[in-house]
């Protein structure tokens, strides 16, 4: 999603990973849920925590910390599933992003969205759709398709000499 497209979206579901505040447009988030039993998937990439049963639908859980190369959460630390829709997938491409905690829905109607800072490195640069400068923190807006695109990302890397 490009910065220009994001301008139309004024409300973001915010959540935290370590000390970083991140956001996803509310239109792409179906719900936030916790306490579901996760079935691990052997041989899957480390980003994939497993599968959950979301009212009869099987949803793949992505650990956002692992996806972004951040340190592991302690085993007993709380976490939440942010259920997101990956628009183009049929039927209802639902994924769960595992985050540390959920914040408010932020309304940014009078704040301009900025392009990803040039200093962002590697993975962060690929998954960042833009940033908002808020009073207390910086909100990094995630581009959901890029977050889910880790397999192709790895393939691309392999092809590089």
């Amino acid at each position: 999603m490009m910065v220009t497209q994001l301008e139309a979206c004024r409300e973001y579901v915010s959540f935290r990973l370590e000390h970083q505040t991140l956001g996803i447009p509310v239109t792409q988030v179906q719900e936030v849920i916790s306490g579901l039993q996760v079935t691990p998937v052997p041989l899957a990439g480390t980003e994939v925590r497993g599968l959950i049963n979301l009212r009869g639908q099987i949803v793949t859980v992505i650990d956002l910390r692992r996806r972004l190369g951040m340190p592991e959460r302690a085993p007993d630390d709380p976490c939440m599933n942010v259920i997101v829709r990956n628009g183009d997938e049929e039927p209802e491409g639902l994924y769960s992003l595992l985050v540390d905690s959920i914040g408010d829905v932020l309304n940014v109607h009078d704040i301009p969205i900025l392009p990803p800072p040039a200093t962002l490195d590697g993975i962060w640069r690929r998954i960042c759709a833009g940033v908002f400068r808020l009073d207390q923190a910086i909100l990094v807006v995630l581009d959901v398709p890029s977050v889910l695109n880790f397999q192709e990302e790895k393939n691309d890397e392999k092809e590089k000499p």
Partner: protein
Amino acid sequence: MEEFLNEFVVEVWDNLSHLDRELITLEKCPQDREPLKTIFRVIHSIKGSCGMFGFQRLERLAHAAEDLLGLLRDGALPISTETIQPVLSAIDVIKSIMGAIEKDQTEPAGDDTALVERLRAVCRKSTGEISPVPVSSTGAELSRAESANNRATISEQSLRVHVGVLDRLMNLVGELVLSRNQLVELSRNQEESPFSPPIQQLSRIVSGLQEAVMMTRMQPIGQIWGKLPRIVRDLSHEIGKPLELKTNGAETEIDRQILQAIHDPIVHCVRNAADHGIEMAEVRQKNCKPSTGEIFLNAFHEGGQIVIEIRDDGAGIDLGAVSAKAVERGLISAEERAGLTESKILSFIFEPGFSTARQVTEVSGRGVGMDVVRTNVEKIGGSVELATRAGHGTTVRIKIPLTLAIISALIVNVGRHPFALPQVGVLELVRITAQNRTLIEDIHGSRVLKLRDRLLPVVDLAALLGIHDNLSEFTIVVAKVDQMVFGLIVQDVLDTQEIVVKPVGKLLRAIQIYAGSTILGDGRVVLILDLARIAARAFAPDTRAAVLEETGANGAEGANQKTKLLLFRTGKDLATHAIPLAAVSRIEEFPVSKLERNGGRLFVQYRGGLLRLLRLGADVGDLDPGNTSVPAIIFADADKSVGLLASEIVDIVEERLVLQEGGFAVLAGHATRVLEISEILGIAGEAG
């Protein structure tokens, strides 16, 4: 308007699907005018509806075809290939136009003048004398009215439902089955609960509903067969062989998803049979066969599966040519070629790209892209087998499951995680405890299971899945994929359940060993393992060969390690021999009456092929006549198997192997001749 158009499209397709069959019948029995009436009616109604939608191309074509059909119907023109061919071509064009209309809702651009002219040219050949048969004309009216009547009654009994609705119904029933399973699971622990009886009742109803909904998705296989007469007819003209297509079991019903998936493989096999399987008419006559080649299609239910056979009465597959090609392509070495079984040779036909080689298609026939056929059939959980008899023909047997959506599965634990294993491939379960631990032998890190005289390779599922697990007691699931039987180590088997297969998520598809995922009665998500993929992964042909080679070599030479050896007596003096256990694939017992001699060699029919049997130090002619059966040690690697007859199997010992001169060693306190696999295969090669 759009609604009318959709209705028109559906109606026309429906009618067109009957037309091919009618036209072929017509060509075969020109005196039977009944099919002509139907064809005429269909084309007439297409022409009529075209005006309403302004489809001019379609109208012009249908008009010209109708004129010709009218003359044929009234007997003004004789019915022959010459007069029918333009009609068939017109129908083909009408079909392609309809396809485009269905997609874009408008008629595609194009010029059919040449075809229309051809139709008219045939019309002009008409004698102009319309044979006056007034009685038959009222007869036609009558039968038209009659068949309209019939149609009305049939249409009252059935109605057209959009496939999307059925698919949605099936999904919902799938969900319902899951919820039912959860309820049953909950009530299982509380027998006194007042909810139990109604849950039981609900459970029964859901099962009934599930079956009923599955029925709605069933379609007769005749839908595929309806298209084949035309294909065979065209092929027959194209390649100049008279062909006849016979079918049986057209009413056999299959899930529509599967029906779609097997359409191409079946058509492919029929083409193969016509093109390569059946000989030219002259050749057939020389061999005292009827000059018309026969292709026979058969479909029937067998043990919860559907079997589809495509049989031809052609020349059969030239096994020699296939194995020669396999040598040429480097799949086997020239020496190995001698000991190949028939089933092994036939399996080459499924090698990717194997049959596209020109020589094979010309010499032996069969098999342009049989690998694609097999891949497609295996994708839906089916299997393909080939059987052939020189001079008598070839049969392709395709086995497929009834439905894909709901399967019966074993729920097994691997490293405390449950997984589902489709029950179709499972043969039996063997529980391994401290008592019968010896059933498992470890051969240089690869494990085998001794199961009733057979040695089966064993896959440690936990290791394959990268789960750490060290078990003293476990269960081995004995499974069969293709012709291969192997064991899978799991912690234990929890349950069997009917599960609803859901596809694995997009991010997990690359892993391949999962056939899908499902939700268990307690709400847990479990992954469904794909037995064929697991076998392919665990026994990749090159790694398997490498393991055999390595263990075989070390068995005889690795002086410091203990080696497992199979001891047996053989030869005139019943001397004890030993062979590294790693080289042995099975031990079988064959009835003496089943052994066959040919050209000084001994064979036995084994697993659908011929197995060459060898005997050490003695002529194969002097078998002990007193015995009714003989044990044989089977050696097999990736491409070749041979059996070594023994007088008696003595024991398996594990000792440090120190080879003395002449290949002897002291084993179990006796001087024992230690054989090497290469030696045995060498004997096979020399004698051959």
